């Protein structure tokens, strides 16, 4: 592999990666929390609905980690990193526009609300969450310059993105749902992800 050929001085873009990792952490948990709201009209708000949502988010993230890590091997760059954010933004859009249609179909097809909510979670959340999961290992690769500090860099990134998740959970449940419609919150998140992607692509151009 090419671990001895650092392509560019990564510390210059370190702040941007940290900011973007924070953003993705925030949005993952905010969407997860809204997921309960989104499913409730069709499948209730019982413990199994949360079971469905959390397990699908976990599976999606784990798949995302795997793919993101794999992609980070070949000439990692901010441009591709930015594409992850743009794709995640696109991946969230169907939740805004097609969630009710999808859930209607699932509700008609499956009687048991446990498996209904599991399937609906998969349809609605798997793809955007997996894409958001790709961001974590890729961030590590973008920031690591040498193996000695790789653990420290990874720790710093986990710190920032998990803090983002905590804040996303808190703000969404305490305030955002009180101030805004769910779709407004989701569209704002699409906009934020889109801007984040453009920022990364812009920085990549500037660096090249």
């Amino acid at each position, binding site marked *: 592999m090419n671990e001895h050929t650092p392509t560019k001085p990564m510390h210059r873009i370190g702040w941007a990666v940290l900011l973007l990792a924070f953003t993705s952490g925030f949005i993952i948990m905010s969407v997860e929390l809204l997921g309960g709201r989104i499913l*409730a*009209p*069709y499948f209730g708000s019982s413990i199994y609905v949360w079971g469905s949502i959390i397990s699908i988010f976990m599976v999606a993230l784990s798949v995302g980690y795997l793919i993101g890590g794999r992609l980070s091997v070949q000439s990692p760059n901010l441009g591709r990193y930015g594409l992850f954010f743009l794709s995640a933004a696109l991946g969230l859009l169907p939740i805004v526009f097609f969630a009710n249609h999808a859930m209607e179909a699932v509700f008609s097809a499956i009687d048991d*609300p446990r498996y209904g909510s599991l399937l609906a979670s998969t349809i609605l959340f798997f793809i955007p969450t997996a894409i958001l999961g790709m961001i974590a290992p890729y961030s590590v690769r973008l920031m690591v310059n040498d193996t000695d500090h790789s653990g420290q860099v990874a720790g710093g990134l986990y710190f920032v993105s998990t803090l983002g998740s905590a804040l996303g959970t808190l703000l969404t449940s305490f305030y955002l749902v009180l101030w805004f419609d769910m779709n407004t919150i989701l569209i704002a998140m699409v906009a934020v992800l889109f801007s984040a992607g453009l920022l990364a692509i812009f920085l990549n151009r500037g660096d090249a």
Partner: protein
Amino acid sequence: MNRRVFSRLGALLSCLVLSLSSGGEVIHKERSIYRNIEVQQKGSERCLVFATRRDDRRQTCVDLKAPDRVVFSYVRMTFGGLLLAPNPSSILVIGLGGGTLPSALSKLYPEAGIDAIEIDAAVVQVAEDYFDFQSNNRINVHIQDARVYTKRAGQNGTTYDLIILDAFTGDYIPEHLMTREYLEETRALLAPGGVVVANTFSASDLYSYESETYRAVFGPFFNFKLPGSGNRVIIARPDGLPDRTTLALAAKQLAPSLAPFGIAITEFPRHLTSKTDWDRNAPILTDQFSPANLLKNR
């Protein structure tokens, strides 16, 4: 006149007694996946309590010496819905509690089919073990989320003459059961002339939001409050509300059969009003926007 004063005093006194008597001997205690459940008994009064750390929420009480008598004023008020649907043949009750409502309705209308929806299997068990609740070929209990049941029933074309919404424990509100969309799905289950009765919140910011939401779905409804009771019961009929004379007549006819339950139905008509006493500009709760629990605390 004297009787009126007396009944008010009585209501006040029973409120006082109820608030003082909270916390009898705990005869059953369990933790279900949804809540802490206790059955408390003091003297001949036995209560189902959803215990929280802050305070106890008494859901249902029965007087073991007079098991038919309905102890809680809001439960008695719920029977006000019968003024608009005097002879229901199909009844849906959302939220079982101790089973007081389905039991009483089944005694009143032995021929009626009653579906009772309760999300918590443990509550059903406690109702059977401690509150003499029996499901039978007329009372069907469905252990299910009410929203899921309602949607499915709508798909199947099931209809009811009387729907009673009593799913709120006071401590936590299932927010998906307070939205316009849910009420529209509920309305779709009404047979022609059918009536919805909802035991709701009378205090906090939520009062206006909830009232506006019901009005948006059902049009003008009877806002039913009894002096001396902090409760508000909504009685709605999309096909139109009867006038006071009709209500009084219905009350007179119902009075004898409701007397054993301690329900003074003839007192009810003059407290049924379709006047609005809330902020008409309050936003409507929807599936997109329903921060009911946050509003309740404001």
